[in-house]
Structure formats: C-alpha cells, structure tokens
C-alpha cells in the first residue's frame, strides 16, 4: 500500500488505521444505534420476554410482582374463540385480498405497459392516489359509501340489484373490508409490476410471435416467468401489510358484527386497552410468527428456480 519508509511496520499502521476507521464509522452510526436499540430492537425483545409473564397495568408501578408464567398466555390465546376467530378473519382477509390485488394490479400494469400511449401519467396518478391517503380517512368515506342507502347500493340499483347492508351483515362485512383494501393497494403493486415489466426482454415476445404464440401463450410462457421475482416480492410485502390490518375494522366495523371482522392486530389492541399487557404481547407474537411463516412459504413456493 505505502511506499514510504517509516519506522512503523506496515501491518501495525494498517491496523491502527482500521481501528480509527471503525471508530469513525461507529460514530456515524451512534445516534441511529441508540434510537434503534431503545425504540425498536429493545421493544421487540421485551415484547417476547413479556409474553411469558403475567404483566398487567397494575404492575407498572411495582414491577417486582411480575411472575414468569411460561406458555400460559399462548395456551389461553388458543383457548379463546375470539382469538382464533381473529386469526381466521386475518387469514381470509389476506388469502383473498392479496391474490385479488395482485391480479388486478397486474392487469392494469400490462395494459399500461403495452397497449396505451397517451394519458399514461393520468392513469398512473389515478390508480396510485389511494395509496398515499390515510386509511382512517378513507375508511370513513367508505363507511358512508357502504351504507344501506349509500353510493354503492345506489349504483347497484341501476342494474336492479338490491345491495346488502354491507357493514352490518356477517356475510358481507369482511368482503367489504377486502374490497376497500384491494382498492387501496392496487397502486403500489401496479408500480412494482410496471417496473418489473420493463425488464422483460422485448425480443422474447418478438420471437414467440414469429413462432405463432398468441397473447395468452406469450403471457404464460414469457411474461410470468420473467416476472417471477417481482411477483414474489409483491406477494411478500403485500402479505405482510394485509396480515396487519387494523385501521379498517377499527374505523368501519369495530370488529363486528359478531366479530366477523375482528383482526388479530385489533384483538391485540383491545387486550392492551383492557390492561392485559403480557397477553397482548403474546397475541402480537403469534401474528409475527404467522407473518414470518407466510414469507418463508412464499419464498419456497415462488422463489424456486425451475
């Protein structure tokens, strides 16, 4: 490295410089590391530890009264029909909502990518607009749209369809929330798919066309395989988002009717509100494990190379 003749052997110099570099680098990282440890990593670990105790509101002033109860909270969770109900609702919401959002977003992206030359920015802005808005505000607007005499049923009446009382019906409440979530998330995936489509080599399509492949054959044989990494990425991030749904039931249905829209995140929040801190932590960890598991399954299913 250095050609200068000095009294210090090269290796010692290098390691001193390394040490100084490490010090400088950690100084750059210090504010972040402190905030990260206190407000992110710490609480994640604390939540895990808490979930094995019986901590409640009353213990906040006398923390030495807290006992370790092992897996009691987790056992209680799975004995509570409301919690299992919340898990089923969360799964339904995710397993219906994510594929639906992805399919519609992919259709929009394909149309924008291939067939449309004018007003592309207008379409992109329009489809993306719901993404940037507050779910709370949007949920309130949708609550009015879904009223028995609201905009949606007024629209359906044009076609002679008598719409249900969306949010008050145990059958339709969860589909209503899915409908709103799909509406809100199409834009994100549309942008991701558009970026992905740009990487599909045009020549492959040209070649397949020469060989006589039609639109659907080309879509299956060329577009989908080329998009596989994009689809995986989209499925994972949308899945993580959908599994945490909270604002929609909080604002639109309060989890009702009859727990038909109670989500796991909302159940956790409720238990926290009742002061059952340890129990709420356990519930949040179940949700976390579900999220990690889902991500791993998606990597296995979609990430494999043929």
């Amino acid at each position, binding site marked *: 490295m250095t050609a200068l003749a000095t009294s210090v052997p090269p290796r010692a110099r290098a390691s001193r410089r390394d040490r100084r570099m*490490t010090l400088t680098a*950690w100084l*750059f*990282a210090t*504010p*972040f590391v402190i*905030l*990260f440890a206190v*407000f*992110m990593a*710490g*609480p*994640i670990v*604390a*939540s895990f530890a*808490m979930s094995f105790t019986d901590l409640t509101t009353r213990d*906040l002033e006398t923390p030495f009264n807290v006992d370790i109860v092992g897996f009691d909270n987790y056992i209680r969770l799975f004995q509570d029909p409301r919690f299992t109900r919340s898990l089923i609702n969360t799964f339904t919401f995710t397993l219906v909502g994510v594929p639906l959002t992805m399919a519609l977003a992919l259709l929009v992206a394909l149309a924008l990518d291939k*067939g449309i030359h004018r007003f592309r920015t*207008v379409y*992109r*802005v329009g489809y*993306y*607009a*719901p993404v*940037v*808005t*507050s779910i*709370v*505000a*949007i949920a*309130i*607007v949708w*609550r*009015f*749209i879904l009223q028995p*005499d609201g905009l949606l049923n*007024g629209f359906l*009446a044009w076609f002679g369809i008598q719409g249900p009382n969306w949010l008050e019906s145990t059958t339709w409440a969860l589909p209503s929330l899915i409908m709103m979530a799909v509406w809100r998330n199409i834009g994100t995936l549309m942008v*991701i798919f558009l970026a992905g489509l740009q990487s599909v080599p045009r020549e492959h399509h*040209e070649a397949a*066309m020469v*060989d*006589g*492949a*039609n*639109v659907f054959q080309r879509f299956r044989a060329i577009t989908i395989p080329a998009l596989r990494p994009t689809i995986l990425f989209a499925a994972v*991030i949308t899945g993580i988002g959908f*599994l945490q749904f909270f*604002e929609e039931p*909080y*604002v639109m249905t309060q989890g009702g009717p009859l727990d038909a829209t109670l989500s796991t*995140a909302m159940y956790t*929040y409720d238990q*926290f509100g009742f002061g059952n*801190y340890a129990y709420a*932590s356990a519930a*949040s*960890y179940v*949700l*976390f494990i579900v999220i990690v598991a889902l991500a791993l399954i998606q990597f296995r299913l979609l990430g494999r190379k043929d």
Partner: protein
Amino acid sequence: MSTLTQVPEAPEASAFVPQKSRGRRSSLRGRPRWWLYVVLTLGLVAMVMPFIWMILGSFKTNAEIRQYPTNFWPIDPTTENYEALFVRLDFATFFLNSIVVAVFVTLGNIVFCSMVGYALAKLQFRGKKALFALVLGTLMVPGVVTFVPLFVLTANLGLVNSYPGLILPFLITPVGVFLMRQFIMGLPDELIEAARIDGASEWRIFLRVIMPLCGPAIATLTILTFLGSWNNFLWPLVVATTENMYTLPVALALYSVGQNAAQYGLMMAGAVVVVVPVLVVFVCLQRYFVQGISLTGIK
C-alpha cells in the same frame, strides 16, 4: 415511460402467423387500442370516485347526504361542515400536531439515516454486516409487536401524551436506512478517495461531498417519512390520551364514533382535511413517490 421504442407495424398477412392469433397480433405494436382505454378509464373512475364523493359530500348538509336516492352534486353547497370542524372540534390543533410530528420525524430520518447509511455504504468497520442484517430483520416486524413494551417504556419516561412521546420512536426507520445506503452505494468511490487524499475528514466528506449528491434520495425519503408520519395511526392512538395531543387520523377516528357518527358531512370534511393536502402534494411530486415505491417497495 418512453414510447420512442415502438416497433413499426408489420405487414398484415404473414406466412408465419397462424389465422387464429391475427386479431391479437397488434398487442405489442404501436396501434392504439380503444377498448384498453375504455377498460382503464372505467377502472380509473372506480379509483377516484370515493375521493370525488368525499369532496362533494363535505359541502352537503347532513340532511342532503342522508337523502335517498342520493344526490351526486350538492344542491345547496355549504361550508358549515368545515366551520364546525375548525370552530367546534378544534381541527386546527390536530392539524398543527400532525405537522409538528411529521416535520420532526422527517428531519430525524434525514439526519440519522443518511449518517448510518454513509457508514454502511462506504466505510469499512467491524460489525457492519451484523448491523445491516439487524436493520433489515426489523423490516418484517409488525407495529403491534412493539407497541406494548414501547408504551411501558414511554410511560416510565413520563412521555405519554407529549410531542417527544409521539416523535421519538419514529426518528429512525429501517426503510430510511435501506434507502440511503442503497443510494450512497451508487455514488463513485473516486470522489471519496479524492477528498481523502486532499486531507478531508470523514465528517467533511459526508457533509460536503456525499450529502450534496443525495438530493434525489433525500427527496424520496422526505416524502415517504412525512407521508408515513401523517397517516400513522396505531402509535398516536395509544400515546395521545387527551384531545390537545391528537393527530388528525386519531381525532378523525375517535370523532367518527359516538355523537358525531351520524354527522356524515362533518366526517367527510374531516377526511378532506386529512387527505387532500397529501393528494395535492402527490400530484405535484408523483414521480418521486413512484421512485420511492420502486426503490423500497414500501408505501
């Protein structure tokens, strides 16, 4: 984005193309296809209708909104909903709270995330890989996992129902670190080497060489964190316990139940106050929004 690379239209009859697919053959060619416009436009109407409905509704009287069949345009437009919002419900305070929290959260993210981003991208140090892996690992952790211990911590620090309580947990975000690191990695090493040879310290390099080049990344980070903070709900709901500390989404959610639940026009006006500023900014800066999403995949 570019339409310059269109392939010229091929001759209609080609021996290589079977009869069946002839009609669809133009899918990759430059011919505009009207039915795609029709379908996309119908979709577009469905996407923006709730916003139009919200804005029109905010100018209707309560009686008019409840009428059936529904009026689309307000018959007798009124601003009484907005007056009630700002006079009776103190939305000016909630608006201010949202702004204060979002500004500090955004500033914190710009400063702290670019510092650690620079270290992770361009400096060699022990523990670098572990630190980055840890940051990425937290991306998958849902908000509900941390809020219980975070609340206990905030309570013990005496920060419940205060600005610091609302702001501190969000001064850094893993996404921000990821974004800044990715961007700084793309800057040429030669610039930094040259500055080092000129005898500049790492701090000077960071402030004078790196930061001035980070404009696009900082713009994206600003938009993403401001937006995230503005729309954030769960934590403010937990930590803001009295009205004077509510942020807009919390106020809107809590007022939308109980005695105001039936005040449709009022709630629509509230939604307008939360949503429209963001929509206006979005329409002006939509390129950066889209960039941010493609870079991080996170809204």
